[in-house]
Each structure stands twice: as structure tokens, then as C-alpha cells.
């Protein structure tokens, strides 16, 4: 059997719409340096590195070989993994498997993106099948808007429900010095913001950002030596099923349901809303923060609006979602999902500063991307 693994350090850059003060490698170096400091280790302690981003956003081939100067990977084992929007959790899972396999003790996962270097929607559009779907495909917003329209139709959810989620996440970001967008918003502000694609409005939608994140994983014995309170990995599950957008089941999210069910089973979670102390979820749009609640089994199907309106997921609720501000406040795509894992780890380690939730024992982190792909990682304060 493999080893148990814990997160011992996290570092992230100050994310922004454009980090014109630094090149891609400088951005990576900022996150790596901070993670090493957080774990109180040096590069000599790092046995292997894994990196991820989405190629077409920066147009750099073999990023694992390019990033050397920023990663500190000269004469170290390194390779790259990439899976679109889920890249960040893919990198996290990869580092976890490195350490769990017993081949490497201390492994650094790095996710990064410099979206300012390209036209994000044009690059994303290349994910669609060039023969069947690329021309009619409308970037990331269209599909998300479509799925929420169907949920509104089926269960009576409203634009106001998603606006509550948008306001929640954006206001949470005020406690996160690293977040890209930090602004006080009211539900009214969100409802009055310009319509992008019905029913998704400007303040409902995530930005694209420049940023990087580094998370250091260590196998059990090493982790215990390095830090007093590692964030132990309890489960890592991925379901990336759909290939064509036309294949999707729009009424619910099968990949998310399959991934969460499996992850909950592995981690022994039977009542997620009660048993998770905090959730850092990859919600690219506030509408996802309504509709997907069903697929997380936080509520019965169609009952998400009631859950959101109850305040259960706000900072003072029983299960705060996205104390960091989440994706709506900050989205350096290759890093975004890794930030969910890193932020959750900090919650357990007690390092979340102004956004710390008290007594965090179990956290849920997710990644989302591509064609309805779902990644789930559960962390815990105690060994699994």
C-alpha cells in the first residue's frame, strides 16, 4: 500500500489582471519562494516537481523545461501535467501520487498562468473539436449560462440566487490580500451589472488573471518532521468524462456527482454539509454556486436556492464556501484549482489570516474545467 501524504507548505503570488512587472518565470519564482518559506524548507529538500498550465495561453512548449529558472528545477526530476481548467487539481493530485507512491518524499506542485499574454477566449475556443464544434462554440460563458437557465426553468431558481453567491464570494475576497478582484458588492450591484449571456452578468463571472501557486506535499514521516500540522490528503478523485459539448447532460452534472460520491466514500463522509468545515470550490460563475450545490449533495435536487438563502455557506454559516473569494475573485487558470487546494490546506494549518474559519478539521476542494470535468480533493487535520 502507498504512503499517507500531507501538505506542508503553500505559496501564491499577488494575482492581478496583468502582472506586467514580471515575466512568467518570475511569477513562478514568487510562488515557489513563498511556498518554500511557508514550509520552512529549501529547494534541496524538494525531491521532485510537477508543473501545470494551459499551453495556448502563453504559447510555450515543454513548459516543464522552460520553467527551470523559476521552479528551481535544474538537475531535479520534473514533468508537466495539464487538463484545462482542472489543471490545478491535476497538478495537486500528481504531486500527491508522487509522494504516496513512495518514490519521492517531498514534492512541489506548481500551477501558473499569465492570461494577460494572450486572448483567453480565443485560446479556450481551441479546445473544441475543430470539425464539429469550434465555430458555434462560444467560450466558457455560453455553456455555463445555458445550464443555469435550465435549472431556473426546472426548479424556479432566480438571478437573485446566483447574485447572492457572487456577492458572497466577492465580499469574502476582501479578506484575501492575494486575490485579483477585491470589492464590496451588494446583491443589487450584481443584478445591475451588464448582461454577458443571459442570465450571466458581468459580476457573476470570473476574471482571467496572472498568477501562480505552489503547494508542497510530503509523505507521512517527512510531513510530520517538517510542520506541526500538515493538511493530510484524505481523498483525490477525478472524473473527466465528456469529449463533446453536445454530449453533456445539462440538467445536472454527472461528473461532479460521480467524483464527489467516490471521494466522500473514500473519506468516510456521509453528511457533507455538516462534516466539512470549509469548502474551496471551483465555481467559475456564481450560477454554478447555485446549481452545483445539488451535485455536491449539500441539498436535495432543486433545493440549492434555499441553501444559499439560508446563509449556511456564508462566512458565519455552518459550511463557509470560498473564504478566499474563490474563482469569481481570482482566476489564473493553471493555478486556480491548485489555489482551492492551497487555501483549504491553509485553513487546516491555521494560516488563513483574516479569512480563517475556526477549528477546521475537514475541507473540500474542487477543480472544474473543459467539458464539465470534475476533480475533488478532501483534506483533513487528522491522518486518514
Amino acid at each position: 500500500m502507498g504512503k499517507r501524504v500531507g501538505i506542508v507548505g503553500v505559496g501564491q503570488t499577488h494575482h492581478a489582471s496583468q502582472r506586467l512587472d514580471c515575466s512568467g518565470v518570475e511569477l513562478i519564482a514568487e510562488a515557489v519562494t513563498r511556498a518554500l518559506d511557508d514550509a520552512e524548507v529549501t529547494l534541496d529538500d524538494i525531491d521532485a516537481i510537477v508543473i501545470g498550465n494551459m499551453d495556448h495561453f502563453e504559447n510555450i512548449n515543454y513548459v516543464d523545461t522552460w520553467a527551470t529558472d523559476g521552479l528551481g528545477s535544474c538537475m531535479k526530476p520534473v514533468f508537466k501535467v495539464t487538463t484545462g481548467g482542472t489543471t490545478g487539481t491535476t497538478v495537486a493530485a500528481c504531486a500527491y501520487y508522487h509522494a504516496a507512491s513512495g518514490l519521492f518524499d517531498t514534492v512541489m506542485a506548481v500551477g501558473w498562468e499569465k492570461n494577460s499574454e494572450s486572448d483567453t477566449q480565443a485560446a479556450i475556443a481551441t479546445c473544441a473539436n475543430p470539425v464539429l464544434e469550434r465555430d458555434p462554440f462560444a467560450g466558457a460563458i455560453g455553456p455555463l449560462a445555458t445550464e443555469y437557465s435550465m435549472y431556473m426553468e426546472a426548479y424556479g431558481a432566480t438571478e437573485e440566487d446566483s447574485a447572492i453567491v457572487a456577492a458572497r464570494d466577492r465580499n469574502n475576497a476582501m479578506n484575501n490580500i492575494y486575490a485579483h478582484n477585491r470589492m464590496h458588492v451588494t446583491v443589487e450591484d450584481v443584478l445591475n451589472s451588464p448582461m454577458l449571456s443571459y442570465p450571466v452578468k458581468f459580476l457573476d463571472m470570473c476574471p482571467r488573471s496572472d498568477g501562480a501557486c505552489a503547494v508542497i506535499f510530503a509523505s507521512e514521516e517527512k510531513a510530520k518532521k517538517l510542520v506541526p500540522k500538515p493538511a493530510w490528503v484524505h481523498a483525490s478523485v477525478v472524473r473527466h468524462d465528456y469529449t463533446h459539448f453536445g454530449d453533456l447532460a445539462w440538467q445536472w452534472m454527472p461528473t461532479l456527482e460521480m467524483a464527489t460520491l467516490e471521494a466522500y466514500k473514500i473519506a468516510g463522509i456521509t453528511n457533507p454539509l455538516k462534516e466539512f468545515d470549509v469548502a474551496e470550490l471551483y465555481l467559475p460563475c456564481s450560477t454554478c454556486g447555485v446549481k452545483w450545490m445539488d451535485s455536491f449533495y449539500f441539498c436535495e435536487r432543486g433545493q440549492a436556492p434555499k441553501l444559499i438563502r439560508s446563509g449556511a455557506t456564508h462566512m458565519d454559516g455552518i459550511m463557509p464556501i470560498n473564504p478566499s473569494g474563490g474563482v469569481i475573485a481570482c482566476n489564473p487558470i493553471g493555478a486556480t484549482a491548485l489555489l482551492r487546494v492551497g487555501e483549504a490546506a491553509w485553513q487546516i494549518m491555521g494560516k488563513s489570516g483574516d479569512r480563517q474559519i475556526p477549528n477546521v478539521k475537514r475541507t473540500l476542494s474542487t477543480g472544474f474545467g473543459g467539458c464539465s470535468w470534475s476533480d475533488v480533493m478532501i483534506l483533513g487535520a487528522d491522518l486518514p
Partner: protein
Amino acid sequence: MAGWKDEVEEIIYPGKICVPYSWTVGSTLSKWYVQLRDDGEIWANRCPSCGKVYVPPKIKCIECYKDMNDWIKLPGTGTVETYTVVHYNEPGLHPKKPPFVYGVIKMDGADTGLVHLIGGVDPDKVKVGMRVQAKMAKERDGHITDIKHFKPIA
């Protein structure tokens, strides 16, 4: 003293494949290119820990992972460590029509080599070990091509 980072001009490159790109050059290389563009000088930076000197400069020493704030002006001369005479056509990529020469020039005063063109000489006469010096382009705009090529020292 790291104060130069506050004063350095931030350079952005436009680049284009099928998705248009603009790469942020960052503080370290921006400083290098400003000196190349404005003064026609090639500088390097040095690690405070192991003393290794890098050109083009690096954001951190790749052996020690330390920040480097010592900048050194190089004489711009060097020795050809390796070269190749390119004969195939790739007009979308190549800066010149073949035959032309690429080389890795071990720069005097530095521990690394600089990849560039070797020119001002018959391609068939280029040899490993040849002593060369950088020839600056007349019009410079903060790109690697501000160095026109390396030519043999007379």
C-alpha cells in the same frame, strides 16, 4: 542593492502565432534589454553565493536559487563553443536566408554561452574556438536582434 527594480522600464513584447501573444519580459530581462537597446552594451548578473555569472541574465541562480543583484558589464567578446551552418529553408522562422550560421558563444567574463547568429564571415570559415565579438544593430528596439550577430575579431 535591489533599487534598480523600481526604476527599470517595463518592456512588453508583441508576438503572434494564431492566438495573438504579448510576453511580459519582466524586470531582469527588461534591464538587460534596455542596456542593449539604449547603450549597445551586454551585461550579465552574478550569484552572490557561488559567483556564477549569467548571460543572458537570470532571475535567480539556477544552482543556488538566490536572487542576483550584482550586474557586470561584459566586453562583448567570446569564443565559439559550437556552431552550425543552416541550409534548409524555414522562411516563417529563420531571420535570414540560408546559408547562415547559428552559434553558442562562450562569453568572456561569464560562465554561460549566448546563442546567436555568427555573421560577417563566410559560413564555411567558421570554426569552433574562433574568437568573436558582438556587432550591434544600428536600429535597436529591445530584442535579442539588437545584437546583429557575432563577427570574428580581426
